[in-house]
């Protein structure tokens, strides 16, 4: 027991081995943080290289084949190693037990195993680079992914292993939320971040296995020619798309739902006001998770699916837009008659609402069948998903990071530089991706190494924005390092927040709480 003063989860045991064999969810969260940030730097570097190549029409720094490999790795790294684990495995692992008043997650050893799955999966994925990696795009569409002669099999195997990281995290979270809540904490007294993680966990557990089997079948197709996706043997290449998107559509909600949970926490804390529409937001998380399983075909309106099927998927996609809109309105209403401060986390939260709204409405635009025919596979889609993934999830990770840094490290971050990072990221992001909506409308397809000269001016603007985002994230790194090593000591509750993690020391002890918390009211009783 670490009830001695000054002893916390960071200093109670030292040495690399104590970290690599830890069963403490807080240490595992920190290890995820380091891994995810490292993968983000690598994926981001591929993005910078891509935008450098795209600065002008024609060849700039690499050949078409290399560009296609960069494009694939950027997508695969960001999707599977950054955005999917980003909030749940880092912030979720650290704060889920704390926020429900538990001493750890239900299965700490499985938690550690999930981290190793991330690391080993990533290692296998990067190993494929020895064989020139893959050039299929992160979606691995057949038949091209079957025929291309490079390290695709190895990359796919790496992604398969990464899938287990996600499944095990989800499994742990579902069980933890059901079984380990503190006395008095009913489901409707849980913080909304937990609702977000819970809904995400359901999707992780139910959708990821389908990706798993799909990837195994792709490997079997590549290595043994089994024929499910090969028309010469009676197979159907479009079947791959159905299987792939059955997972990958819920996957994008796995990416965004926990981020929305973070935003709920930030908005209520920094307006010092109880969240508006708690039940609506909670139910909307579950609603989005449920409906997300029925919209996968909206990625396939022009793939050959019938008119009836396309219409059904379009309808379901409209349905999923409603709970999403509900959240945005409830967050905005929370600010009404609040007492608001604009520190870096709040800036990121408000930036999220603005950028996610744009991402969301462009999603509705794409859900309209007749309009998607023009926009499918163009830069409009690229802009849409970057608005929700980067303008959404990544901003939530940054905001959540700053918000919870005092708790994780016991030190305050530098407010001035954190705000600078926000400005650089926010402005850089819009400069990079807004022009891409226009490029898509003009007809520029995605995954294009080279483009017609008419597309050049907007591509140049986009590239300049990209490098600005890069600098913004370097500033974030600076702020984090400066905080960890020389930050001013943080009090237990610098923000005056009401959720349970702030009722223990900064950083928390190994056991999280010195005495078992007992909950008697809602999570946001700012009165």
């Amino acid at each position, binding site marked *: 027991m670490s009830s001695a003063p000054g002893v916390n989860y960071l200093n109670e045991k030292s040495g690399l081995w104590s970290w690599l064999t830890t069963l403490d969810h807080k240490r595992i969260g920190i290890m995820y943080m380091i891994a995810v940030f490292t993968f983000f730097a690598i994926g981001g570097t591929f993005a910078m290289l891509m935008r450098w190549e795209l600065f002008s029409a024609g060849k700039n720094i690499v050949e078409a084949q290399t560009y296609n490999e960069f494009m694939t790795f950027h997508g695969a790294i960001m999707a599977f190693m950054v955005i999917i684990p980003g909030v749940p495995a880092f912030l979720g692992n650290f704060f889920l037990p704390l926020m429900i008043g538990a001493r750890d997650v239900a299965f700490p050893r499985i938690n550690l195993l999930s981290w190793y799955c991330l690391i080993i999966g990533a290692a296998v994925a990067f190993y494929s680079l020895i064989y020139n990696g893959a050039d299929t795009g992160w979606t691995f569409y057949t038949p091209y992914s079957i025929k291309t002669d490079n390290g695709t099999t190895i990359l796919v195997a790496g992604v398969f292993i990464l899938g287990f990281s996600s499944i095990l995290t989800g499994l742990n979270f579902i069980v933890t939320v059901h079984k380990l809540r503190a006395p008095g904490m009913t489901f409707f007294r849980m913080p909304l971040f937990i609702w977000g993680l819970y809904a995400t966990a359901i999707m992780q557990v139910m959708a990821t296995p389908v990706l798993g089997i799909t990837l195994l079948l792709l490997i079997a197709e590549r290595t043994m020619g089994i024929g499910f996706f090969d028309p010469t043997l009676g197979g159907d290449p479009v079947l791959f798309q159905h299987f792939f998107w059955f997972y990958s559509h819920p996957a994008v909600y796995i990416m965004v739902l926990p981020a929305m949970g973070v935003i709920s926490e930030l908005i209520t804390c920094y307006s010092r006001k*109880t969240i508006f*529409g708690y039940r609506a937001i909670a139910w909307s998380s579950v609603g989005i998770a449920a409906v997300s399983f029925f919209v996968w075909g909206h990625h396939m309106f022009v793939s050959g699916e019938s008119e009836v099927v396309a219409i059904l998927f379009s309808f379901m996609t409209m349905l999923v837009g409603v709970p999403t809109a509900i959240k945005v309105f409830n967050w905005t209403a929370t600010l009404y*008659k609040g007492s608001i401060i604009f520190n870096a986390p709040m800036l990121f939260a408000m930036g999220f609402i603005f950028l996610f*709204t744009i991402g969301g409405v462009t999603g509705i635009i794409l859900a309209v069948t007749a309009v998607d025919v023009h926009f499918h596979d163009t830069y409009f889609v690229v802009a849409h998903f970057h608005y929700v993934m980067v303008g959404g999830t990544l901003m939530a990770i940054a905001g959540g990071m700053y918000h919870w840094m005092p708790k994780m490290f016991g030190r305050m971050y530098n407010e001035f530089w954190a705000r600078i990072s926000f400005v650089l990221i926010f402005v850089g992001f819009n400069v990079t991706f807004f022009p891409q909506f226009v490029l898509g*409308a003009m*007809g520029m*397809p995605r995954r294009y190494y080279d483009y017609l000269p008419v597309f050049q001016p907007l591509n140049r603007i986009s590239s300049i924005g990209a490098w600005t985002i890069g600098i913004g994230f370097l500033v974030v790194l600076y702020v984090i390092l400066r905080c960890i090593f020389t930050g001013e000591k943080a009090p237990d509750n610098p923000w005056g927040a009401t959720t349970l993690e702030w009722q223990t020391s900064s950083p928390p002890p190994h056991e999280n709480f010195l005495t078992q918390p007992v909950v008697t009211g809602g999570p946001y009783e700012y009165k």
Partner: protein
Amino acid sequence: MPPEATDLASKVDALYSFLLWASFISTMLVVGGLTYFAIKYKRTDKNQKSAYITHNNTLEFLWSFIPFLIFMGVFAWGWVLFHDMRNMPADALEVAVQGQQWDWTFTYKNGRRSSGEMVIPVNQPVKLVMASKDVIHSFYIPAFRLKQDVVPGRYTTLWFQPKYKGEYQVFCAEFCGRQHSGMLAKIKVVSQEEFDEWLGNDPYKGLSMVEVGHKVYSTRCVICHNLTDKKLVGPGWKDLFGHQVELADGSTVVADENYIRESILNPNAKIVKGFPPAMPTFAGQLDEQEIMGLVEFIKTLK
């Protein structure tokens, strides 16, 4: 947006405009609300209290139901247009499209083939019946606001009725490998008379590839080249294929398919020793069928 080259394109643009406006207004409402509340309720005093408001069911209902109505509206509007897109007219002119890594070939009912350029008459419905030879491609015509994946092992279809004469860009819109971004084509919409003339006027009808190559040579290349090893303006082609060629910079290269293709499309990339850099490029003037025909023809010159 690109030009509205069909009636359907105009209708799609109308729906898109509505969507853009609706999106803009809703975004401004949210951002406006955020900004207004942020300024009005900024914490000026350390102890400034907030109001305790947990929810409002009426508001909740309104801001669920109104968006739902708008979503249903655009869904239905989109359905009507989408149905039009999928409803193939019975009397359309049919063109077969083959996509392959990395070009498009068009075949007409009378056997006329062209690659890289589809010629069609204005104001007539045209139906494309498409298949792929290898991997999934996608036939995308921005000016018509249309696209359809082209899949190996089955046919997919697309139809349109162009309103105006002109040239419209075609892109491949499904990643298909190295030259995905180079898999371009053009749709050339001409008058009925010009189309009929073009259709009946297949200069390579019934010819083998070698014969096509020979024909191209005798009309386009004979001015500077010859079929012996005599040196004219350009090198002779006898015994060219498969042998080493010495270049002006001193290096040597094997005259294979790629070398010949590059010489036609980008002649200044490799200048043969002893010749001036005088050859013009034939990019845009010779199509795939003609270039490949030339290659086959040159292979026979021993």
